[in-house]
């Protein structure tokens, strides 16, 4: 199971590094405006073909490139109801703080859980390889965080269920 993870991550890393070759591009439709072309989609010749890298049907990454911006959308693995709720809450939490995050997009792309938008201005201010590192680390940590939250929820539920029958503060049980 984990050997697919390594190749998956390596493929994502390679594609991201290739897609993140960005240069400034002034808008060709409005004078003196500078828009991320992958969002505006006004000039077809500067858009690159979108690439989907999937590990299985539940986990995939969509990378759409253009001359001055890259949009990375991630679909996180959600096996059951609890994970679905936790993932939804977590991504919503992050997207509300998108201003702090700079490269995060406030709404995910249709069909995915979270999206990043990286423009040439970002790559001018930050190291490209570190940006790629960040996105890869994000993908790994989100999975870990969601399963940790699920485990802590189950542990808490177990303790709560047992405590109802406790006799006293020493923890002796009432019925046996």
């Amino acid at each position, binding site marked *: 199971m984990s050997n697919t993870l390594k190749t998956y991550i390596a493929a994502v890393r390679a594609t991201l590094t290739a897609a993140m070759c960005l240069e400034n591009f002034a808008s060709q439709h409005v004078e003196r405006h500078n828009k991320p072309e992958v969002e505006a989609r006004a000039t077809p010749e500067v858009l690159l073909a979108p690439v989907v890298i999937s590990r299985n049907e539940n986990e995939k990454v969509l990378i759409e490139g253009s001359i001055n911006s890259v949009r990375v959308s991630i679909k996180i693995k959600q096996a059951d*109801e*609890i994970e679905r*709720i*936790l993932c939804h*809450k*977590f991504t919503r*939490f*992050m997207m509300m*703080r998108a201003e*702090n*995050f*700079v*490269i995060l997009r406030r709404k995910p792309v249709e069909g995915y859980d979270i999206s990043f938008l990286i423009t040439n201005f970002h790559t001018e*201010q*930050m*190291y490209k390889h*570190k*940006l790629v*590192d*960040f996105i890869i*680390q*994000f993908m790994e*940590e989100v999975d870990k*965080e969601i399963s*940790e*939250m699920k485990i*802590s*929820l*189950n542990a*808490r*539920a*177990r*303790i*709560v*269920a*047992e*405590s*109802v*029958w*406790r006799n006293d503060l020493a923890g002796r*049980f*009432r*019925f*046996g």
Partner: protein
Amino acid sequence: MILLDSYNKIIESTLRDAFESEQPETINVTAADFDGVTYTIVTPDKTRPNEIVVSMHMGCYPELQRYGADDMLRKEYDSLLHSVGSGGDSSADVVLKIDSKALPEDKESVVKKVAHLKRNALAAPFERAFNAQIAGESSELMTVNYRDEEIFFVQAQADRVTVIFSTTFKDETDRIFGKVFLQEFVDARRQPSIQNAPQVLYSPREPPLELRGVAGLRDSENIAYVTFVLFPRHFATEELRRDAISRIQMFRDYLHYHIKCSKAYMHSRMRARVDSFLKVLNRAKPEKPDDQKEKKTASGRTFKMR
């Protein structure tokens, strides 16, 4: 603080202060408890501040009266009880009158007794069911609408007493967390040390068999039914009985309290995780070259760049 107390802390602390103080003072306190129950503690006569009147408003009290709550309260509070039911001179459901100058030796027990007012009122259907079961007969299905959309049922049968709660989850997240918690309640008996505890059953939307045919049950995704099965050994002694009633009547509030606590915990975890992501992202920013960096002395004055 995992367990919720079955007595009301506000009443307890108000009465304790009133009893312990040298000079009785006028009191005017309105307090709320779980399940929409409100209390008022006043000293109506300003010239005699030692007379304290505690009144409780409880929406489901008329139903409890049908199951013998009046007698229960009379037995428990004896001379302190002033009136029950809204027929009397006040609109409250139960009124107690306490004279802080004429207390028995053990003041603490009076304080605790009055603080348990709600619990004692709600204990009526349980006591009736326990007594019926011990006598070997089964009782009717007793219904108490203790909250707006939530009901609990108590029924005694030949060999057991069943208590069924219907609880509503207002939120999708609450519902799913509730499912995890309730599933653990059902599975708790796997542990050898609590094998003798009452059996808990959980049914997400369908009412359990005992409730088939009961009118007035709402059907919706957000409702869950929890059944406790109590055998005679669970209410054999006075102490066990008291304990079982206290825990089971607080069950719904206990469950929702813990659901909210775990939501708060998730929130603080997510906040911590987001902070750590931000730190990683900031590592991507290169350090400013030396001639643009702001330099400061130890006392905080900045060097000016020319």
